[in-house]
Structures are given as C-alpha cells and as structure tokens.
C-alpha cells in the first residue's frame, strides 16, 4: 500500500537543511556576486565564477528556481574557460524555455561561439543553441546549423546532425524548408566519420517517419532508407560504428526485406560475428535480424534458434540482474514460441537462491513451458524445492507451475504424488495453492480422484483460510461426497459457521456442495441442507440469496430435476483457454528488442498517443477492424436483451449475469439471450463450476440495487441531459477521412469515468456497444482490442450542420474505466457533446 508522501522530505519543496538553502536570500546574494564579477578582469575571476556557477547549478538540480539570475549568468558567460562555458550553456538550456525573451540575450554569444576556432567550442555552442527550444528563435538556428553540417570537424558535424533533429521538433516546417533532411541524407552516405553517419540515420528515421503522413515524398524517402543500396552501404561499414550506432542499424536491417534467400544468407553470414559482441543490446539486435529474415523459411528459422541460444544464455548469466532481466524477457518470448527447442536447456532456467523475484518469475514460466516427457520429472523435482522458498509469492508461483505442468503433460503420476506432498507440508499458503491445483487436476483427470481424495480428506477445513482454497476444498467435498466418509459432517460444521464465512464465493460453493452431497447421501444431509438453505435465504449477499432461493424452488418443484440440474454427469475438461491471442503474440514478436517484450503486450497498448509520431497511429488504425456492418449481423442474431421493456428481469437471470461477469472471459455465448428456465438452468451449473477461480470475485457488500446500477449510476439518465445538441442520425464518414481528420484536429476534451457493471458484462461482445451507440447517433469508425483493453473510434455529426465530433474511447474492463478523447470541428459544443457521449455510454448495458 502506498504510504502518504512527505513533501517536506524532498527538495522540490525546499526544506531548511544546511546543504539546501531555501530562501530567496541566497539567490539574490548570488545575483549580487555575479554582477560584481561580470565586468571584472582581475586575475582569479574565473575561479570565483566557477564556484558561483557551481552553486547555481546545484540549486537548479535540487529544484530551486534560479531563473531570476538569467541576465547575470549571460553577462558572465564571456569567458575563455571551457568548463565555465559548459555550465553556462547548461543553465541557459534549462531556463530558456520559460524565459523566451531573455533567451534572445544568449543568441548573440552562442552565435559568436559557433564561429570559434576551437571545434570543441563550436560544437558545444551549436548544441546549446539547438537546445534552447524557443519557437520564435528558430530563425537564428538555420544559419549556424547549415555551417555546422559543412564543418571540417567531425565533432561539430555530429552535433549539427542531432541539432537538425532538435530543430525539427521545435519547428518542422523551418527544418524541411531549409532542406536539411536532404543534406543529412547526403552526409549519411558520404561522411567519413561513423558517428556523423549514425546520427544522420537516427535523425532521418525520426524526421521521415513523422513527415511520411503528410507528404508522399517523405514516405518514399522513408522507404528509401530501407532500400538495398542504403542497407548494404551501412552493413559494409557496420564494424566501424560504435556499439550504440550498431544497435540502431541492426534495428533497421531487421526491417529490410531481401529479394531472395542468397541475400538472406549473405546478411546473416556478415552479421554472425555480432552474436559474440560484448554488448547485449547488439546481440539482441542481431538476433532480431536473424529471426525476422528467416520468418518464412521454417527450417532455417529453427537453425537460427539453435544458433542464438548460446549467446542469449550467456547474456542471461552475466551483467547486472536488470540486464539479465531484459535478456530473459526476450528469451522468455522465444521459449514460449518454440518450447520444444529449449527442452534440453531447462537447467539454465533453474533459479538461484539470491536472484530477484522478477528474474525467478520469468524462469518459472520458462521451466513450465519447456517441460516435456523427458524432463518433467527433473523440472517438477526442482519446482518442488522452490515451494519451500522464503519468498512466498515465488513459492506460490512454483506450486502453480507444478499444476500447470500436470495439466499439460504426461507424467501425471509423479506430479500427483508431489501435489499431495504439498498438501502435507502444513504451510498455509502451500496447502491453499495445492488445493486449488488438485481441484483443477481432478477436473481434467477424474481417474485420479481416488488417490487425491484420500489425502484431501485428511485436511482439516479449519486450516484452510484463503477463499479460493476453501472453495476448492468445498467443491471436492461436494463432488466426491460418496468417497469421503466425513464429507457430510465437514459440510455440516461449515454450515454451522455460516456467519463467520466472509467470502461470498465460499458460501456459494458451500450451497452447491451441500446440494450435491444431499443427492448422494440424503439421510445424513437432510438437516444440513435445510440449515444451509435457510442461512442462504437470509444471506445479505444477493448472489448467495438468489442461489439458495433457486435451489429451494427447484427442490420443491422436483428433486430428480434438481439433481439433473445441480449434479449432472460431467465431462473432463480437455483444453484450457490460452490467455493471449496469436495475433497479439505475433505483434510482440515483430517488436522484438523493445519494451513490448518486457511488458508482454504490443506497443499500441502502452504507448500514449500524444507522445507518438502520427505515423504509427495511422498504421494501428488500419489494423483495427473497420466498419460496423458485419458486427451488426452478429449482434442482431444473438442479442435479444438490452431493450427498454426488459427492465424486470427475473432474479435468476440477474445472478447469471453477475456470476459470469466475475468469470472473466469464460463465456462467449450470449448471456441475455436465454429467458427460458431450461437454458438458464443448464448454464447455472456451468457458471458455478467455472466460477471456482474467478478473476474478480464480486464484492461482498454489493446489494441488489448496486448490481442493477440504479443507485450509483454516475451520469444522468439520457432524458435529463441537456438536449441542446442534436446529432445527425445518418452521419457517415469513411475510415480514411476519419484518420485524416483525427490527425488534423487538436484534442478538445479528454476525460475519464467509470463504466457501470452491466456495460462491462455486455462488452464481452463489443459489437453490442457499437449498436447501442449507433442508437444514440454516434457511429463507429473502427474498433479493436482484447480484454481487458478495448478501443473504439467513434464519430458523430451535428444535425443540419457539417460540424463533426471524433472520439477515441478506451475502455478497460478490469478497472471499469473509460478514457475518452474528443476532437471537434466546433470546439464550443465539445462540452455538450461529451455530456451526451457520456450519458449514452452510461446507459449501455442497462436494461
């Protein structure tokens, strides 16, 4: 839990400590001293200046505002002392942006320094000049930059090249109009200095990527960077470059598409020695090239895996834990893609006692993935060692890993023994995790029930506290009631302590288990069943209450039917859902050697739009599913509910929807569809058994009103919203126009708000949302994403006016938040539109 911050501890709100002066007194003191020194030519002036400058810089670092010294600092900058100059440049670079007027003062001396005899000073001055970041001073940059690019000294050229990039970020048009990109291109292909070439490359990549969306020409230039002559030219010079520049180039080469396999082998032969480079980033960059080049050649691709294994394993075991984490994340990705190829390397994934937990966690996942018939025994033995780890999250993780291996592998016999040993370890968390696993195991391999039940029967329910584990234990008690002599009595004592059980999930399971047990051992259970139903009916939790009532009525209706519903013969679960789609995995793979791999999600899910070049954005839009037509058909076929007259749903159906909402993505079938008793009944058992491991157990205190979203509905009902704005219900816009418009307009409004629970449930089929919004005259341009992140682009048009509203809406179903960004032709009505949009969204999913 985050502790409250203590602002006084931090220098940003200065505290009176000896080393950190707080008051303005010191600053004005400095001002005075600087002024005295400014004109002085006495010997030793530079030394005293240095001391003063140091003080200024140290104040600046700790966050004290020393911008008032600007003019004095500039006055003192006339010096031959290079260290003084550097300090002054640093100061100026920091404060020019907030003092654009005073920044003008510095232009003069910086421009003069740009013509100094010393290339060092020329370079430094040019760098500082470009770092001022003041838009109205760009005219002063063009001249010195032009000279800098032609300077005889490589150092100055190297600085000038990055200077061009800085200029581009301040004023793109000035940079392009001065024809700087063309000059950079020339330098890139001809300069003898490798760092100049490398900087040209980075600068051009950034500039042309950003320009590509506006001009055809720039996008051609961007393509040209990846053309054969350029790539070959760079590859041939690669070894002259320093390690960082090599990283940039390798990243580019990975995007190059060779024309035939000979070319591919040539490139790989040329780059093979890079796998021996001491810099891990170079090695990873090379690995990326190899993997990308051979994607379409299955055999070679596999050989590449074999080839890169050794260098990657070396990297993981050398350097700091942070470095090996970065490499391990990539190895993790490869292992997940081709576990078989790493099956014999499993010992490399054994954890060392002192490794940080983020490293251990990745290793555990890899151990799980590479387990196969030949190594399962060793891996499971090793994992069992970790179960006793002091690091409890890791211990839990390892037990889960054992379970996962059991569910995917062959040597189940040995694993079951291990799991049962866990149960006997008598550590709370070990028992808890093991119980959940045994339960899952039994769902897949019912044939092991005999061995497991014998051990599970010995566990005292009093020693199990965690809701998940308790629920698992209770599930087994119900499911295998006939094999456990004690079952009725254990359940009885649990029912007696009904009021002390805080988890509604456990109480729900208890109800079902009591029912199941009753069908098998009626005489022993009758009394307990009565007590359980009575307790359930008076339970304050809506789900528990409803289930009890449902069982009660079902039993009253017909006991045989009740048994068919509650305890039908079950089929073993054979396949477990994969959490990540192949498409997402492939996108992560394409972004090899970047943050995506560490976060295990593609970049569009975590990079903020506003910080990115426009180009990537448009690319993404193209990948989203365009149009709502096809969605409409599905929606029409499946969805009955969500109309106004469904306000009075029967309680059973309500329970359905909430239980399934806690199940995460377990369902794809329509939930509102079944209004007949039979279908809701058959789903009931499903919902019960699959809610044993819910993603988000519904909060205990939620009352019926909350569930219906009537009380806490955050937005006003549509009728009460200001009807000042009318939208054209038949607005139309094709995705390309949308894309263009989205780029042109600035963001008028952005807001975050909560989505009601009903909306989130209905969001499992996002098409419903599109249809719902269309009903409110808000149309969808594109949609996409995966739970928990959904993303929509909407547009709407003002009635009888051409004015458009564009919306980007990101809904996170796990935090139930919607983030909305609105761009509008007519900004004055954006507010009204937001209100409308919000109210439209808030009624989504509400009956």
């Amino acid at each position, binding site marked *: 839990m*985050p502790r409250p*911050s203590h602002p006084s*501890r*931090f220098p*940003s709100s200065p505290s009176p400590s000896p080393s950190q002066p707080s008051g303005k007194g010191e600053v004005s003191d400095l001002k005075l001293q600087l002024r005295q020194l400014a004109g002085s030519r006495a010997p030793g002036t530079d030394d005293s200046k*240095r001391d003063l400058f*140091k003080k200024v810089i*140290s104040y600046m*670092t*700790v966050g004290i505002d020393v911008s008032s010294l600007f003019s004095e600092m500039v006055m003192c900058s006339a010096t031959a002392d*290079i*260290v003084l100059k*550097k300090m002054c440049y640093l100061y100026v670079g*920091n404060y020019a942006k907030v003092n654009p007027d005073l920044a003008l003062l510095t232009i003069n001396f910086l421009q003069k320094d740009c013509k100094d*005899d*010393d*290339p*060092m*000073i020329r370079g*430094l001055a040019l760098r500082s000049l470009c770092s001022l*970041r003041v838009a109205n001073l760009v005219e002063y940059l063009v001249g010195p930059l032009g000279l800098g690019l032609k300077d005889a*000294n490589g*150092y100055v050229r190297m600085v000038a090249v*990055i200077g061009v990039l800085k200029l581009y*970020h301040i004023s793109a048009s000035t940079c392009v109009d001065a024809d700087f990109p063309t000059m950079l291109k020339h330098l890139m292909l001809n300069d003898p*200095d490798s760092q100049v070439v490398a*900087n040209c490359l*980075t600068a051009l990549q950034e500039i042309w990527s950003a320009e590509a969306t506006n001009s055809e020409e720039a996008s051609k230039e961007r393509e040209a960077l990846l053309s054969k002559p350029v790539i070959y030219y760079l590859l041939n010079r690669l070894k*002259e470059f*320093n390690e*960082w520049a090599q990283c940039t180039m390798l990243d580019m080469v990975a995007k190059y598409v060779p024309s035939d396999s000979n070319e591919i082998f040539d490139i790989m032969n040329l780059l093979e*020695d890079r796998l*021996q480079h*001491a810099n891990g*980033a170079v*090695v*990873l960059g090379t690995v990326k090239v190899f993997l990308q080049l051979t994607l379409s050649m299955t055999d070679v691709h596999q050989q590449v895996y074999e080839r890169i294994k*050794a*260098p990657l394993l*070396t990297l993981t075991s050398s350097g*700091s*834990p*942070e*470095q090996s984490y970065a*490499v391990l*994340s*990539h190895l993790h990705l490869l292992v997940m893609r081709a576990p078989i190829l790493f099956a014999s390397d499993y010992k490399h994934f054994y954890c*060392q006692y002192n490794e940080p937990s983020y490293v251990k966690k990745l290793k555990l996942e890899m151990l799980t993935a590479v387990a196969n018939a030949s190594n399962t025994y060793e891996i499971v033995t090793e994992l069992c*060692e970790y179960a*006793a780890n002091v690091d409890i999250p890791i211990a839990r993780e390892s037990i889960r890993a054992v379970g996962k291996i059991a569910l995917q592998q062959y040597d189940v016999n040995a694993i079951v023994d291990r799991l049962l040993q866990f149960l006997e370890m*008598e*550590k709370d968390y070990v028992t808890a995790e093991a119980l959940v696993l045994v339960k899952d195991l039994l769902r897949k391999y019912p044939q092991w029930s005999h061995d497991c039940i014998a051990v599970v029967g010995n566990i005292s329910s009093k020693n199990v506290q965690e809701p998940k584990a308790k629920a698992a234990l209770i599930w087994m008690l119900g499911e295998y009631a006939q094999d456990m002599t004690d079952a009725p009595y254990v359940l009885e004592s649990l029912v007696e302590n009904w009021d002390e059980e805080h988890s509604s999930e456990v109480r729900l399971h208890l109800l079902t288990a009591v029912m199941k047990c009753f069908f098998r051992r009626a005489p022993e259970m009758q009394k307990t069943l009565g007590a359980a139903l009575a307790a359930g009916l008076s339970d304050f939790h809506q789900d528990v209450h409803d289930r009890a009532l449902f069982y009660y009525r079902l039993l009253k209706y017909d006991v045989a039917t009740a048994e068919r519903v509650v305890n039908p013969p079950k089929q073993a679960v054979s396949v477990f859902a994969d959490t990540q789609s192949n498409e997402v995995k492939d996108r992560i793979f394409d972004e090899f*050697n*970047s*943050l995506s791999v560490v*976060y295990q999600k593609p970049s569009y899910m975590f*990079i*903020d739009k*506003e*910080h990115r070049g426009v180009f990537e954005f448009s690319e993404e839009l193209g990948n989203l599913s365009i149009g709502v037509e096809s969605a409409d058909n599905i929606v029409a076929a499946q969805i009955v509910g969500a109309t106004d007259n469904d306000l009075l749903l029967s309680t059973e159906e309500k329970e359905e929807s909430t239980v399934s909402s806690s199940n995460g993505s377990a369902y794809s079938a329509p939930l509102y569809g079944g209004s007949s008793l039979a279908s809701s009944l058959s789903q009931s058992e499903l919902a019960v058994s699959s809610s044993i491991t819910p993603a988000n157990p519904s909060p205990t205190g939620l009352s019926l009103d909350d569930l219906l979203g009537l009380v806490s509905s955050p937005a006003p009902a549509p009728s009460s919203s200001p009807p000042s704005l009318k939208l054209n219900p038949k607005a139309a816009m094709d995705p390309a126009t949308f894309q263009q418009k989205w780029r042109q307009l600035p963001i008028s409004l952005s807001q975050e708000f909560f989505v009601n629970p009903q909306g989130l449930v209905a969001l499992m089929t996002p098409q419903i949302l599109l249809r719902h919004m269309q009903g409110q005259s808000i149309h969808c341009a594109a949609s996409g994403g995966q739970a928990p992140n959904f993303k929509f682009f909407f547009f709407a048009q003002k009635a009888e006016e051409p004015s458009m509203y564009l919306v980007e809406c990101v809904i996170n179903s796990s935090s139930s938040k919607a983030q909305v960004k609105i761009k509008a032709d007519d900004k004055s009505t954006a507010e009204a539109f937001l209100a409308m949009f919000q109210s439209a969204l808030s009624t989504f999913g509400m009956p």
Partner: protein
Amino acid sequence: MPVAASAIYFLNLRGDVLINRLYRDDVGGNMVDAFRMHIMQTKELGTCPVRQIGGCSFFYMRISNVYIVIVVSSNANVACAFKFVVEAVALFKSYFGGAFDEDAIRNNFVLIYELLDEIMDFGYPQNLSPEILKLYITQEGVRSPFSSKPADKPVPNATLQVTGAVGWRREGLVYKKNEVFLDIVESVNLLMSSKGNVLRCDVTGKILMKCFLSGMPDLKLGLNDKIGLEKESQLKSRPAKSGKTIELDDVTFHQCVNLTRFNSEKTVSFVPPDGEFELMKYRITEGVNLPFRVLPTIKELGRTRMEVNVKVKSVFGAKMFALGVVIKIPVPKQTAKTSFQVSTGRAKYNASIDCLVWKIRKFPGQTEPTMSAEVELISTMAEKKSWTRPPIQMEFQVPMFTASGLRVRFLKVWEKSGYNTVEWVRYITKAGSYEIRC
C-alpha cells in the same frame, strides 16, 4: 530507435535529486515525483526494474546508494538502456577513480553534467569510451587539446579518433618497458541437490588484460580450446597434440577483437586499448572441475536441538591452496546457543544472517576438514516444520586453478618496431553462486 531517453535522473535512497538531465520535451517535469510516488515509496521498489507510469516507462537500477532512472516515452530498447547505464557508471568511475556513490556524485556533479552532455544527445547514446572522452573532457578548464596547438599546424582530426575506426587506442604511446598482464578469472556456479547430485553447474570466465605497450601492437592469443586447436592443426596439416582441451559454450569479445578473423581462423587477434580492459568473456558447462565438495549432515533432534556436521573436501592439486574460504550454513531464526568443533579455521554463529559461518583462511588441496556444531533452539509454539532449509553457500578463491581447465598457450605481440615484451599470466577461480541444498 535504440533508446531515445527523455530524461535521466540520479536519486539518492531518500529520493533527493542528485542529477537531473532532461533530453527531450516529450515528458513532463514531474517525472521524478512520479517515480518517487509510484515506485520508491511503495512495495513496488525492487519488484521489477521496468515500470510504466502514465504514458512513460521507467528503467531503474540501484548502484551502491544511488538510483539511476531513465525515462522514455517510446517503445525503447530495454537492453540498450540498461547497458547504457552500466557503461555510463563505468565511465564515471574511471573519472572519479574508484567509487560511484552519492558523495562522489555530489563532489563531481559539474563533471557529470558535462559527461552526460557528451555521452547522450537528444536521448541517443553517443560515445561512451573513457579513453576517448578523457582526451577532451577534463576539469582543467583549458581549451581542448586539438586547438591549443599552434594554429599554423593543421588541426589534427581528434574527433575522427573520437568516433573513428580504432576508437579504443591512441597513437604514439611509448613505454620504457613493454609489459602485458593477463588475468584469467573464473567464477564457478553450482547448484547441488541434497542428495549430492549436481543440478546445475557452469563456469563464467573472463580474461582481463593490462597492456603497457608502445605503438600500435598486434596481439594474438592462443587458448587450449578445442575448436581453436582443431582449426590450427588443420591449417598446419599436423595432427592435433594430445592433452586437455576444453569446449567453450559461448564467447564474447571486447570490441577490439577482430571477429571476422575469429570466425574464420579461430584465433583471437586484436589491437589492444591502452591500460586495463576485459578482453573476453566465456561460458562453459561441460567438464567443470569443482574445487570443493561439501558433505553436510543436519539432524533435527526434537524441537529444540540440531546437530550440524559438515565436511568440505578440496579436490584440486595438493600443492595448491584456496584463500578466504567461507561456508555459511543456515540455521533457524530461533537459534539460541551454538557450540562448535572444527578441525581447522574458525566458526561462529551470525544472528543477522541466521547462519553458522565457518571461515578458513588458507585451505590446502586434497584435504577434508570438518566442522560439527550443536545448535539449541528456543522452543516456540508456532507451527512445526516452519523451517525450510535454505541452501549452504560457499565463498572461496583458488589461485592458479581454473575450474574449466582453460590455459593460455601463447600470447604473441607484434609491433613494427620489433620490441621485446614481457607477458604475465595469472589464473584464479572464485565462487559464483555455490549452493548446496541440505
């Protein structure tokens, strides 16, 4: 794009800013606060070195008592960013001459700002080589060396050297005595099960070199690795000599080594930088000679007593000896009293790490000293079996021994002036993570 760092911060453990350098405008100025609020002040600290807050990603590393934080807003290359931090710290160390900590930063912050300006521009790494930077970043305040020379001479293109092909060596070095020192340092990692099976064992080695050589020498290093020897006998069409050869799993080299020649001829040839550097790193998993065998027997006698017997066998040559041997045997937290009997060295109980610590300063080869201890525990009412034994850990150094069996066969120095050189070679094996479960 490789890094494109938006900002870099140095913080002390309290969260005070020591250095703050903003490179790009695409992140807000309150990034330090975000880092303090969401990482430093929460349990998150140390759980993962890469974190996302808002639209920005934070890479952080703790080095002695300083946090170095890089903030990026793009999909950056993580490996590159961490390597950059590591290299930057190495650079600072070479400037301060030793330690890198809060005090060193406070004392040298102007220098650090100067260096940060040079090693990264607009978020892209530039040149980080200490050899080159030291040519023109000094705290002397004089003008840079290439301009202080008389103007009639053409300005030597020092920056071509800064960025150019042989970026790691200056020309015109002269030494009276030409010497080369080679240090082969291996650390051996072991994970042994309680039944005495080796679960995992490997050696990571590095060859450190110290060169005091004049001019531009060409060096060639020969090792007893299998592939290299086979290649050599092929080239000379002569049968390979018998004798111990070893198989290197993987090798990485300093940038000065000609990798193309290594791949074609399997020889390590290079023009070395001046002074100290790491020539190569290697990893070996097959045929590792473990220097020590540890045979523990731990008996729990009831709830309040334990008997610990540990025998350590040294399995290297009898003429060699290990230094600084430390064996740490974990005991439960509630340990109250201990008594020891050791055949050599000294043993005591260290309550702060819950271990029995047995130290032997000089440990000859082919011996097997023993330690036996009785441990009394405070009886507690807490759950039984609450203690799961962490592994026994061991530290040691064995000079003149390599766990991999690696040997330097020759080191040839060739320079056009044809001077004689003196070569010194040392071997040492250290414990990496040497763990024995019990």
